[in-house]
């Protein structure tokens, strides 16, 4: 076995362990609430697997941490120790330690230096509540394995007291061999690891047999099972369950229940395979290409009358659609994959902020595209944190208001109209619009007049604005004024929306809507200014066509803003050609209005023509076009040409119909400011040329010199000066910038020397004023040659010199290196 195979074993171990850990968190939290032997057995198996494999892979810290946790679990399972909050907290701590060790193994290949002495001590203490702390090494590592192995072989029933006896099952020799080989060369170790893994897989994946499960559930004793097995061994052809039912030891319903869980377990281990996500992404891209090719063929078919070609292309159409659907399904994952982290978060948070909370989840199997799932994980976590920290009241307050002491946070997910809806509801205090109103004015998010005229609903939406927080005290969970705006931004980035509904005293519900998938979307194609644009169908409300007289009378104006009366309501109109500065080329006199919804705003987009609907493959605009506004991407049409996909939010902002455009502008400004704070200040040289002041980064200048005018010679077209045994070419900035200048004394020249040795050039200025340490910020609205922009330094208007216009690139690089 070579290194890459070893890595493979390791990678597989890490992946599997992480999955087990996620289940572990959920199971531990469940256990705390409803003690259930089945759940303990599940937790035990997960920890046991990690411990076993880590031993073979030579991960000793991991082994010692999980080992002691496993001991604690086995005592909890056998009822020797109670299930307490303290125990659960310690075990969750163990899960965290395992996670960070796995992270370290993945990143560096080693376990890292942390050995978790405090965690181990805590777990040991809990293990022996009556005795003094015991060193973990004092216990027999294989004890739990022994107990487990014995359970499977009724002939060798292990009493709890026999736990420290040598293991009868075949695991112990394997383990001993592996332990010995850890210190040896890699190939041996790996071989052992592979064998170990095989053994572990069997232990874990073989569905527990009926009798054992009944024992796990505490319905029968091991002795009763042995009797039944003996009867079976003596020639009774019936199943163990049937025998037990006959002896009236168990109820038939319990056996049916157990068999049902077995049936559920089986297909998961046999009929699913692990696939690399990268492979699925590639497949998805290929299907995207196929959809494009299909679209092109269908378009070709429309102009080409051949029955057999037509039939074939129809078949191609159907197969492509089915394939697309199938591949999309492979990328779908139940939302539970991210939700399963939440019980733990809720538990830890409610403990830390002294609240009593219960998490309810509904629709855990709702499926969402993997990419989207990852994108909503953080926003959802944030909303849950908020529900606990801001939403739910403290138990004392709840008591006085007559609510149950335990607060509820309810998560639900379902599909609706081609979208996935996720609701996060709490039964807490709700959001008081008047409090928000006051805070918003206090924090300057709204003016007092604005706050007064807005409806309560609009006011509540202020919580999504940057810099707004209602928490009176900043806690480490929330209240820092960042968060809800980020939640909104992140959800909108994937084409989703978030909405809030609240009733004071009754609770708050956040409703998050996200699309099913991102890659291929249905869209409406429209024309404007001779180009085609695609409008995602999710934002589409309806199409309105005004022709004849209504084309003229249908478009009215309110204080210069065009509107259309749509069923008695005023719909603001946005002429796409005006927004884009393109020339309108309508095919007839009619006015085509596409009514769309973006954010909270509904508006009518007036286009030249509405052509068709199509499934389009969303492709990102390149890095060069990051700054382009109003587009969500591009796609390739049936005729092979590229069409842009409209970002309606962006279009609404460009047109100024978005109600939150001011808030957004502020958010962008805040983000820019936060970014700026990260920039280091630099030394800026300020020079005078004529009447004007210019600034340039000092890093570009090697030296400042005052040279006698008499030393300047003219060589060819250029002025040069003999400087440090070199000929230094001179550039008179005043001439190049077209500025009239008259140096003060006429005796000497102020020269900025850029570069070094042969590769240097001197820039002649009139005077050198100052060097300041500042961040060079400037407006870039200039077309003047040699000037990058204008700024204010030291209270005076200063132009920022574009030194690249005068000095070769390599000289600048040399100067910067020298600086």
């Amino acid at each position, binding site marked *: 076995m070579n290194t890459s195979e070893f890595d493979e074993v390791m990678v597989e171990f890490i992946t599997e362990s992480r999955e087990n850990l996620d289940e572990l968190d959920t199971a531990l939290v469940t256990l705390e609430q409803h003690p259930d032997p089945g759940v303990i057995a599940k937790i035990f198996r997960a920890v046991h697997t990690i411990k076993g494999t880590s031993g073979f892979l030579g991960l000793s810290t991991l082994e010692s941490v999980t080992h002691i946790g496993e001991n604690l679990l086995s005592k909890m399972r056998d009822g020797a120790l109670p299930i307490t909050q303290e125990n659960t907290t310690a075990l969750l701590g163990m899960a965290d330690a395992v996670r960070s060790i796995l992270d370290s193994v993945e990143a560096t290949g080693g376990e890292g230096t942390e050995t978790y002495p405090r965690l181990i001590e805590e777990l040991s203490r809990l293990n022996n509540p009556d005795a003094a702390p015991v060193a973990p090494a004092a216990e027999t590592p294989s004890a739990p394995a022994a107990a487990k192995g014995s359970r499977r072989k009724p002939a060798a029933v292990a009493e709890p007291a026999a736990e420290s006896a040598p293991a009868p099952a075949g695991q112990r020799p394997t383990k001993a061999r592996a332990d010995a080989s850890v210190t040896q060369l890699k190939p041996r170790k790996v071989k052992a690891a592979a064998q170990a893994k095989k053994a572990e897989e069997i232990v874990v994946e073989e569905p527990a047999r009926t009798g054992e499960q009944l024992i796990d559930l505490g319905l029968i004793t091991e002795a009763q099972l042995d009797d039944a097995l003996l009867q079976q061994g003596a020639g009774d052809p019936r199943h163990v369950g049937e025998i037990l039912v006959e002896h009236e030891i168990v109820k038939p319903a319990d056996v049916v229940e157990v068999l049902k869980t077995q049936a559920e377990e089986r297909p998961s281990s046999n009929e699913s395979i692990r696939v690399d996500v990268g492979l699925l992404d590639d497949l998805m891209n290929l299907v995207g*290409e196929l959809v*494009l090719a299909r679209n092109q063929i269908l378009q070709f078919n429309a102009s080409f009358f051949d029955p057999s070609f037509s039939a074939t292309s129809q078949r191609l159409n159907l197969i492509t659609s089915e394939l697309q659907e199938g591949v999309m399904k492979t990328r779908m994952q139940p939302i539970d994959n991210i939700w399963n982290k939440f019980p733990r978060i809720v538990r830890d948070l409610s403990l830390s902020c002294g609240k009593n909370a219960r998490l309810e989840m509904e629709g855990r199997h709702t499926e969402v595209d993997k990419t989207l799932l990852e994108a909503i994980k953080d926003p959802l976590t944030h909303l849950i944190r908020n529900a606990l920290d801001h939403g739910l009241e403290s138990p004392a307050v709840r008591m006085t208001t007559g609510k149950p002491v335990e607060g509820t946070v309810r998560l639900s997910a379902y599909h609706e109209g081609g979208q996935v809806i996720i609701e996060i509801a709490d039964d807490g205090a709700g959001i008081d619009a008047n409090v928000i109103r006051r805070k918003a004015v206090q924090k300057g998010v709204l003016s007092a007049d604005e706050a007064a005229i807005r409806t309560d609903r609009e006011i509540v939406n202020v919580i999504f604005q940057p810099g707004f927080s209602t928490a009176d005290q900043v806690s480490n969970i929330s209240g820092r004024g960042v968060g809800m705006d980020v939640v909104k931004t992140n959800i909108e980035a994937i084409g989703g929306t978030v909405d809030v509904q609240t009733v004071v005293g009754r609770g708050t519900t956040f409703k998050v809507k996200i699309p099913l998938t991102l890659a291929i979307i249905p869209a409406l194609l429209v024309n404007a*200014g001779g*180009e085609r644009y695609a409008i995602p169908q999710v934002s589409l409300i309806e199409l309105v066509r005004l022709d004849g007289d209504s084309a003229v009378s249908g478009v009215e104006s309110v204080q210069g803003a065009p509107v259309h009366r749509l069923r008695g309501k005023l719909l603001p109109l946005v002429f796409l050609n*005006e*927004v*884009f*500065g*393109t020339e309108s080329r309508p095919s007839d006199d009619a006015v085509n209005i596409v009514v769309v919804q973006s954010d909270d705003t509904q508006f009518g987009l007036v286009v030249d023509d509405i052509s068709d609907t199509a499934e389009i493959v969303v*492709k990102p*605009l*390149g*890095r*060069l*076009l*990051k*700054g*382009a*506004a*109003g*587009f969500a991407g*591009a796609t*390739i049409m049936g005729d*092979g*040409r*590229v*069409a*842009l996909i409209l970002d309606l939010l962006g279009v609404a902002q*460009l047109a100024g119909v978005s109600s939150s455009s001011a808030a957004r502008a502020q958010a962008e400004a805040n983000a820019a400011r936060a970014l700026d704070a990260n920039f280091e200040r630099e030394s800026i040289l300020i020079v005078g040329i004529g009447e004007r002041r210019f600034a340039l980064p000092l890093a570009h200048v090697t030296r400042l010199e005052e040279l006698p005018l008499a030393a300047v010679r003219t060589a060819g077209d*250029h002025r040069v000066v003999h400087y440090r045994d070199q000929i230094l*070419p001179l*550039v008179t900035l005043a001439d*190049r910038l077209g500025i009239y200048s008259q140096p003060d004394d006429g005796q000497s020249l102020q020269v900025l020397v850029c*570069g070094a040795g042969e*590769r*240097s*050039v001197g820039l002649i200025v009139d005077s050198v004023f100052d060097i300041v340490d500042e961040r060079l910020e400037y407006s*870039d609205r200039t077309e003047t*040659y040699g000037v990058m922009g204008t700024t204010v330094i030291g209270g005076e208007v200063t132009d920022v010199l574009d030194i*690249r*216009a*005068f*000095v*070769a*690139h*390599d*000289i600048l690089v040399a100067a910067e290196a020298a600086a």
Partner: protein
Amino acid sequence: MNTTTLSQPSHQSTTVNLCTFRLHEFMIGIDVTLVQEVLNRQDATRIPLVSDVVQGLINLRGEIVTTIDLRRRLGLPQRSAEDPCMNVVIRTADGPVALTVDQIGDVIDADESLFEFPPPTLGGPHREFVTGVFKLDENLLLLIDLDRVLDPTTIKIRTEVPV
């Protein structure tokens, strides 16, 4: 057009392999290994509200490629509508980008001894993009810095919204 056979793998490290093209009155060279392919004039989809340095988007076998008008990027006079042009597709870390040039030239082996840094006093807006000059027998070949030409931070992508 770019049919010039590449010379035998050069054993001397003193030559550089350059793809050349004509732009306005200049011959310009770029590292041939960066060139993915050369396309005839393409009908690009215009992008509203974007600097005219960006000519538009083209479909390159299912991939959407941004085309940059190199004349505008280097601040050279514009070509008229009927003047011929071609697209040189460049490989970049962020996928291909097409440069619109007047006419593609040969792939040449240029001797490094013919290289010289640009004269320090060379002026003009395209100054910052030129890294050096090859003094070829027939003409001067300007070597341009593609990283700089395609640096999104220096292209003012977004134009003002017409009011």
